[in-house]
């Protein structure tokens, strides 16, 4: 207890050093927490934007189609009966089921053309799965059978299209024969998903099926559940049901899609970088403790001369350093929590701030990015600061404590 008091008194006596060192530690922890929040926020938003606008919680597709899904082939499609399969309708937590027929085409405004991904949808079903109905900036949705299209505002701007304009989409049907889909632009949407804004054109499913000569087939069935956490179990149950009759049908939860894997891999990479930042912070802490030991060499000599044993001096030093770490860690956690609070409320718009297109970095999010709240990170930050200070101080403390008292007093 005596040595703890001594250590604490030393912290108070050397308040400038204590302040500077703990501030550095606090800053490191603050940045760590903020970075973690940013990465977490980006990850959450990436998942949300993929689930909300592209993949839903579950996808039911033909297994052969799944292997070639990037090419959006018109082979190995699902029969229409899949849509009304009892197993699909009886999924626990089911919120919506949307059949989709996807295809590649070239959107033409009569002057220029751009490659697009076309999606044949049933509007009523589609809007139960994807929150696109709330994202219209102009116009409105279409009904089945109408030769109308909904596309992203950005895509419309690129081709100088307005509501009421007519577009032609050049497609290749099931027989690889060119066909055209003529449609009136019925609505424009703008979402946080860059693909929806720039690459997708939504059309009535029956119009697309006819144009692609695929009868009533669909590319995939998208399922929305009450919670994304239900996806894993639902996919297993559903797969079990389908496997009894048709082993060609595959059920894929959202976390198995490639985009999520890529996002996870990128996050893992970013977290490794974060680890490097923490390592640098640890080196800074070690440096500070060593400098403190050197600075207080005469004091150590005096303590030894007064009869303190080596382990007692080490104890005092380590306690002091840990105290600085605790102070810095605590301050960092408080600052970090405040920062994350602001970050969650206000968000950061990298696109505006730094003219950065996050989509180019593989993050399918537009507009502001909001931080995520992770209490575990706060605890981790605090523990890291305290333990790094503790561990970093042991060796310098031993080194100082082993010095001859006279040499230490005279800084020899």
């Amino acid at each position, binding site marked *: 207890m005596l040595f703890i008091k001594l250590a604490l008194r030393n912290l108070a006596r050397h308040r400038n050093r204590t302040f500077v060192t703990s501030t550095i530690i606090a800053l490191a922890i603050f940045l760590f927490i903020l970075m973690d929040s940013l990465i977490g926020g980006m990850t959450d938003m990436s998942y949300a934007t993929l689930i909300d606008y592209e993949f839903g919680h579950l996808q039911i597709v033909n297994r052969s189609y799944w292997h070639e899904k990037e090419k959006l082939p018109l082979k190995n499609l699902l029969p229409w009966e899949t849509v009304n399969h009892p197993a699909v309708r009886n999924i626990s937590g089911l919120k919506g089921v949307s059949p989709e027929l996807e295809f590649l085409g070239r959107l033409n405004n009569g*002057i220029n053309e751009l*490659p697009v991904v076309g999606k044949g949808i049933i509007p009523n079903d589609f809007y139960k799965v994807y929150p696109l109905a709330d994202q219209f900036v102009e116009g409105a949705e279409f009904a089945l059978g109408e030769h109308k299209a909904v596309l992203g505002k950005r895509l419309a701007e690129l081709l100088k299209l307005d509501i009421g304009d007519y577009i032609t989409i*050049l497609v*290749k049907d099931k027989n*690889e024969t*060119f*066909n*055209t889909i*003529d449609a009136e632009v019925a609505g424009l949407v703008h979402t946080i998903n860059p693909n929806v804004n720039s690459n997708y054109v939504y059309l009535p499913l029956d119009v697309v099926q006819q144009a692609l000569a695929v009868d009533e087939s669909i590319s995939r069935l998208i399922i929305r559940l009450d919670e994304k956490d239900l996806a894993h179990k639902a996919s297993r149950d559903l797969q079990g049901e389908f496997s009894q009759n048709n082993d060609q049908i595959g059920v894929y939860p959202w976390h198995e899609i490639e985009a999520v894997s890529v996002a996870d891999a990128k996050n893992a990479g970013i977290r490794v970088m974060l680890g490097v930042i923490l390592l640098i912070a640890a080196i800074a802490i070690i440096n500070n403790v060593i400098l403190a030991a050197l600075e207080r060499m005469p004091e150590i000599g005096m303590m030894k001369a007064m009869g303190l044993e080596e382990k007692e001096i080490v104890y005092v030093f380590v306690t002091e350093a840990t105290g600085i770490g605790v102070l810095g860690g605590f301050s960092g956690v408080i600052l970090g929590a405040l920062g994350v609070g602001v970050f969650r409320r206000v968000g950061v718009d990298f696109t505006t701030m730094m003219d950065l297109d996050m989509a180019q970095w593989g993050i399918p999010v537009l507009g502001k990015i909001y931080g995520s709240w992770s209490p575990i990170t706060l605890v981790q930050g605090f523990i890291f600061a305290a333990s790094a200070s503790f561990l970093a101080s042991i060796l310098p403390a031993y080194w100082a404590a082993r010095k001859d008292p006279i040499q230490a007093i005279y800084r020899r």
Partner: protein
Amino acid sequence: MRQISNVCAALLCLIFIFAPVFTTTNAMDAEAIIRKRDQNEYVNTAAADVEMVITSGRRQMTKTMTSYAEGDNALAVFTNPRDRGTKFLKRGDDLWMFFPDAEDLIKISGHMLSQGMMGSDFSYQDIMESDKLLELYEFELVGEEKIDGRLCYILEGIAIPEQEVSYYRRRSWVDQERFVGLKEELYARSGRLLKVLKVNELEQFGERWYPTASVMEDKLRKDTRTEFYVKSIEFNPDISEDTFTLENLR
């Protein structure tokens, strides 16, 4: 390939699909016309210097290339300064492209085949079509019409159901004296006119009449056209065996 063969013999030179097998299945008159046209336009082996003038709005680009073709294989090497060294190699059903700047081979497949080749009105698909038109279309003689003062037969071909063909319907105007296609219209299944090819100049090479200047227009886009000129052409030259290899493409 079949596209090209039907569409334009000049394009055949360019991309070296020198096999316009214009044949019909049941209309004897149409079949005879196409057979005669084939005698002019069908080319198995050739080497040619060609020029392509691509116009899109006010922008105009000129591309020149040297091309070699033999059977199902073809090689086009661009020679204009901007694209010098760019090569296209067609081997059977595969199309490869080599960019000298990237020093890399790119296989053109999937939906990329629908894009205009080097920004032209000819799509990559146009140069990839097979030459088995006989199995793909049913032709019919539907009338006569004058094109640039020359009387032509009008032939209409409809894709045979379940066959993989790019254009569902095609309409050809064949010169009644010289048996060369002077105009070709290509339609989507929806009935929409997609492309029109018009032959403006012909030259006689021995017994053969061959198109040396033609224009392709993409009818889905305004103010766009690709003029195609055969500057020189040699029929049945000796072409070395390794001309059509991927190694030679690099």
